[in-house]
């Protein structure tokens, strides 16, 4: 079972939690996380190309810290200097990510996934399996639990961390039974007025024989229709990749938020490149053209909010990323829970109804 698979990024996150001084704490925990990362994988282990200078600096810090411990020599001044350099380098790098670099961060092998966030921010999680029709698709995780004290139904794509888990959940590409499982659990939630939280993280629905035979298009379509009218609050958050209809299939709600370095688009950059340039080599150009970053989608009015990630991305500090998500959900549920079902679904319709309306005109 996928649940037993250890999820390293989350479990090895530093134990202490940001409380009083977010600024100072954030820097320290970033470094500690960075140090564990460097220790675990080595600087090149999981590094994206543009992360390499960062990891090199981290390795230098780590070596100095170790040297200091071993030899009892005081390198604190040097370490502090290097840490300052690291912070500015992280800031400089992550404030200027290209669309394609953002896609790479969203796909980072150490980026927290749905089950990591379940470990980090959901208490009393009870996973609920199966669509009662065909099977249990592990590409979508569903279950009840508490977030910031609120009882919720959680629905999220899960890609898997190691090879075995990735295969078990099809790299987060759901079959129709995944979407039908999600709907069954969401209908259960609506019956008992449990708010629904969805975590979107998929390259798309699974394009395969069984998926088509069992009607993946119908499964997604029905979810879009039913989610529009479910009489309970629905919050959708793109935590990593938002690939087309497969993402939207659990993405209709009262609020749509995106993690800062997530992407969301009608097609993957590789797919777009394949269509326009007959190959994936122009994926960086396609990523730019598709306007798929959280900043673009906020200015287009497609999403309501960007959830800021810790310095250097969620994979550097899953704990801080989870805290940011938790704060967003808590605040938003406080807004939505007092609303009547009618008010909720009317407002939800108005929100959907407006999408794209200002992008057309009478010739």
């Amino acid at each position, binding site marked *: 079972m996928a649940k037993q698979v250890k999820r390293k990024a989350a479990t090895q996150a530093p134990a202490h939690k940001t409380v009083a001084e977010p600024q100072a704490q954030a820097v320290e925990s970033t470094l500690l996380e960075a140090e564990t990362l460097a220790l675990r994988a080595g600087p090149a282990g999981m590094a994206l190309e543009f992360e390499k200078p960062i990891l090199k600096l981290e390795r230098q810090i780590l070596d100095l810290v170790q040297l200091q411990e071993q030899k009892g020599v005081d390198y604190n001044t040097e370490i502090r200097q290097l840490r300052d350099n690291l912070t500015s380098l992280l800031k400089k790098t992550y404030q200027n990510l290209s669309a394609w670099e953002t896609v790479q961060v969203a796909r980072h092998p150490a980026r927290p996934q749905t089950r990591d966030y379940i470990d980090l921010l959901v208490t009393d999680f009870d996973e609920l399996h199966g669509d009662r029709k065909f099977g249990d698709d592990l590409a979508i995780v569903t279950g009840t639990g508490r977030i910031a004290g609120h009882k919720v139904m959680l629905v999220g794509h899960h890609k898997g961390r190691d090879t075995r888990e990735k295969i078990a959940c099809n790299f987060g*590409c759901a079959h129709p039974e995944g979407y039908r499982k999600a709907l069954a659990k969401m209908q259960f939630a609506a019956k008992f007025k449990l708010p629904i939280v969805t975590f979107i993280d998929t*390259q798309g*629905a*699974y*394009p*395969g*024989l069984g*998926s*088509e*035979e069992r*009607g*993946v*298009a*119908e499964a*997604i*379509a*029905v979810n*879009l*229709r*039913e989610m*529009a*009218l479910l009489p309970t609050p629905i919050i959708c958050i793109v935590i990593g990749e938002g*690939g*087309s*209809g*497969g993402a*939207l299939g659990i993405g*209709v709600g009262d609020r749509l938020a995106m993690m800062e370095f997530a992407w*969301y*688009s*009608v*097609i*993957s950059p*590789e*797919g*777009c490149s*394949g*269509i*326009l*340039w007959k190959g994936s080599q*122009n994926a960086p*150009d*396609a990523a730019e*053209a*598709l*306007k*798929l970053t959280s900043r673009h989608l906020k200015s*287009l009015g*497609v999403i309501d909010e960007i959830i800021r990630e810790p310095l250097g991305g969620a994979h550097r500090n899953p704990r801080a990323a989870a805290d940011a998500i938790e704060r967003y959900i808590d605040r938003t549920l406080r807004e939505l829970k007092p609303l009547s079902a009618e008010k909720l679904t009317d407002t*939800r319709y108005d929100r*959907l*109804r407006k*999408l*794209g*309306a200002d*992008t*057309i*005109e*009478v*010739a």
Partner: protein
Amino acid sequence: MAEITSPTVATSGLQGNFVQTRKHVDVPEGLWLKCAGCGEMIFRKDMEENLHTCPGCDHHFRLSARQRIKILTDDGSFEETNASLVSRDPISFSAKKAYKQQIAAIRQATGSCDALVSGKAFIKGRPLMLAVMDFDFLAGSMGAVVGEKITRSIEKALADKLPLVIVSCSGGARMQESTISLMQMAKTSAALARFHAAGGLFVSVLTDPTTGGTTASFAMLGDVIFAEPKAMIGFAGPRTIANTIRVELPEGFQRAEFLLQKGFVDRIVPRRELRSQIARTIDYCGK
């Protein structure tokens, strides 16, 4: 039959390739044409008088939206609505070529504003709201204009208590409007949710091809779903699937008959029977 990759359509999945047969390959100008179904040379005039089907093998040739409306509705009954809605190029899409120039050129060439024609019409005397997708305009892809026109058709049918008929012919969501296109799937489906809740009758007609985001939204949400014979209907394009699973796809995969067998289409309706089939369904539902 020449296979080309659609320049415009984003289906779901890891790759967006979508195989289509271009109209001009199917139907070259001239007195005679080669039928894509049986390979025989047939008289264009015979084909056209036969509702654009092959007199020999019943191959259904693809129709433009205007041709479809002409053969489906009572003579002179169609009143077009929202005819001049055009896209404002929401994300200033430019890769290889600029979307703005691309649609300007297609508007010029086709005389259409976008990939869907909608309005009020009568079929065998029954009034209804009709929306027909147009494959000639960027592979019938759904961007904000198509999404908006479908939604307005649904809302108009709801307000006037009319049955709704949508004829799909589309490669899916329109890549050049990215997430705005994607959101049209949610918008049209939400409008249908209200329409269904209010007891409206929605007849969804699937024609060759109906794929991607079109299938995964309104097209699969009919109270009844009719399909033309042999129409390709699916979510991911066959090439995408073949590239992913690396096996040969079975004969007839993603054709209307395959979907009928798998339980996702109610009836295969030949083109010559579509008018009476829709009229009968409307009568049956007391609409």
